[in-house]
Structures are given as C-alpha cells and as structure tokens.
C-alpha cells in the first residue's frame, strides 16, 4: 500500500497517526481512500467544489503532484505521499 504522511496539525483527524497506509492507483484515489478512512480530514483538504484547497500541497516522493499529472498521477505501493500546507508557496 502507498503511505501518506500527515502533517502535525491534521493528526487530530487521523487518530494521531503520522502515516496512513492507503489503497489506490493514482494520487486522487489514494487521497479519496484517506478521506474515506478519516472523513473529518475532508473539509481541511478540499474546498466546496471538491478541489484541493489552494494552500494544500501534495508531494509524491518530494515532487509536487501539481507539477506531475495532479490527481491522475500514478502511484505504486512503495511510494510515499506527503501533505504539506503551502505556508507561502511551498516547495517548488
């Protein structure tokens, strides 16, 4: 399973888990599995239109998925995803 690393302020919504194993063949599917397991995360990650909020960055092995194929970016079992608030821009 792919692992998603959770930033400290969101661990209140993942039963304090710092890493959550998820299923899914794409970044979008992996995130959907995450919010399915922990529904309280959803309003923190997505806006009302169902898009990732502007300040939320998702990295696949240290690469911003917006610079890959976004939600359609394929993921493998050995991959690690990381959710990071873009406190001013995030990593590029």
């Amino acid at each position, binding site marked *: 399973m792919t692992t998603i*690393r959770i930033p400290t*302020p969101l661990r*209140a919504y993942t039963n304090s888990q710092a890493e959550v194993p998820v299923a899914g063949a794409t970044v979008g599917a992996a995130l959907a599995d995450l919010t399915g397991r922990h529904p309280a995360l959803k309003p923190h990650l997505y806006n009302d239109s169902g898009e990732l909020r502007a*300040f939320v960055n998702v990295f696949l092995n240290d690469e911003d998925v917006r610079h890959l194929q976004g939600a359609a970016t394929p993921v493998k079992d050995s991959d690690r995803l990381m959710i*990071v608030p873009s406190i*001013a821009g995030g990593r590029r």
Partner: protein
Amino acid sequence: MLTLPQFRVAAAATNVALADLVGHTPLIRLRQITAHLPESVEVYAKAEWYNPSGSVKDRPALNIIRTAAAEGRLTPDKTLLDSTSGNMGIAYATLARSLGYRVKLVIPANASPERLAILSALGVDFVKSSPLEGSDGALHAARELAAAHPDAYFYANQYDNPANWLAHYYSTGPEIIEQTDGRVTHFVAGLGTSGTLMGTGRALKAYNPLIQLAAVQPDAPFHGLEGLKHMATAVRPGIYDRRLADEQVTVATEAAHAMARRLAREEGLFTGVSAAAAAVAALRVAERLEAGVVVALFPDAGHKYASERFWNDVC
C-alpha cells in the same frame, strides 16, 4: 516636488545606520474596501513592510539583539540562534549582521522559496526542519540545538523573550497613538509569537483602557496564513496572555487570499497573507461601528508570496 539639489541634501541627511531606520512606519487609510462604511468609521493599515528588512519583525529582532547585547548574553563570539518561518530570520540576518553578530536559523522546509532565496542571498547559515511539523517543529529543533551547544549560541527564542513584545510597547504602540492624534479606538493584529498584540496592546491600553484589541487567528489548525498560529493547537508562546485581547477573530485562509487580491487591485497595496487576514478582521470590526478609528497591523508586503497560486484566482 524636490528639485535635484534639494534631493541631494535630503539624501545626505538620511545617511544613518540601518538600525535607525526600524519603525516609524506609515499609517495608510484604506478607502476603497471601506467604501460601504460611513465616513465616521476610519480604517488604517500600519504598513510594516517599510522597515529595512521588509517586515514588522525588524522591531522585535532589533530589541532582542540590543537587550541581549546590553545584558552580556549576546557577545561577538556567540552566534544568535532562533527558529523562524522566515521574516524574523530575514530581520536577524539584516540587523544582527550589520551590528557584527553571526546568525543561525532553523526554518521549516516548506517556507516560501522567496524566503529561502533571500536568506541564502544574505549568506545566513540555516537548517531546514520537517515540513510536516511547521513552525513548532522548527522551534523544537532550535531548542535542541541550543541545549546541545550552550557555549556556541545565544538562543534568542522569540516566542518566550520579553524583548519581543517590549519592542512594540515602546515603538509600535506610541507610533499609533501619535499617528492617529490619540483617536485610535480599535487595534487589530494577528497572533504568531503574539509579540505585536501583547506589546502594542499594552501600550494602547495604558494610554486609554477603552481601546479595544482584536486578535486574529487562523480558523483551523491546518491553514495557509504564514506567520500566524492557531493558539488552541500550537505550542503556546511564553509571552502570550490570552486575557489581553478583548476579542478573538478567526479568519479562513481563502478569505485572506481573497482580501489580498482586493487590497492589491482596489487599494494598490500588494500585501502579504497575514496582512490580508488582519484586513479581513479589521473590516469585520469596522462594520459593527457607527464611528471609530480602526488600526490593523500589516506585517509585510506581497513580494515573498508572489509564487503563490491564489493571486490568479478569479474572485
């Protein structure tokens, strides 16, 4: 308009040390975003990007350096160490360096690329802490570094150092009283270390206890308001006293982003995200008033956020 010889005279008169340029920032009246309010309600921005390193942090940085030097805790053989999300580090780098002190910083790896580029340009030694842990992670890392090498570092500790809020007590507060001819009725500021609100707020209350203080916080633990803390879930700064503010105002990241666009496009003010959050809160306060003078502190300008994607959103 200045003619050329007069300009030369004026330029010569400003040949002063960098530290002398800290503070005395302008107070700018916001007229466009307040067009729906009566003329008797005035809203002002304290434009802190006019400080030499570009943010409000020059005030606490200078006072922390001067106080520690005067007390003998910061000496030329020690390196000033602190954690920062960026602006305080840039202020230390600018002021400590110009006063002859070395600087080491711990900064979260997700600080903006602009901030990291500025710190690199200033030649500062910094280590990056986990992007998952934000400014609290940087704080813990700096504490550990200070404890491991007590002889090498002066740990400035902006979150617990009273010289932080005292800088505002002796500068920001009196400036606002003077610039409003004592008419200020409300002061609005974001909470990060809380130094701005604690120091300015105490100075304003000492001048007139009826002046109301509004503290601005993110609406949730996970947010994009650079430099601001969600106090209920973050490491609480030692200098923070929750009882001082008369009111707590929470602001969503998206509301601050929308306000940053309005400030840029309607007021011609290219501000940072925390300044925009302060403007959102100031408008909420002002909209309840029939008359009043509301001052919001704008910590920095928008240049360090230029790479953010929210500037191009439609509304």
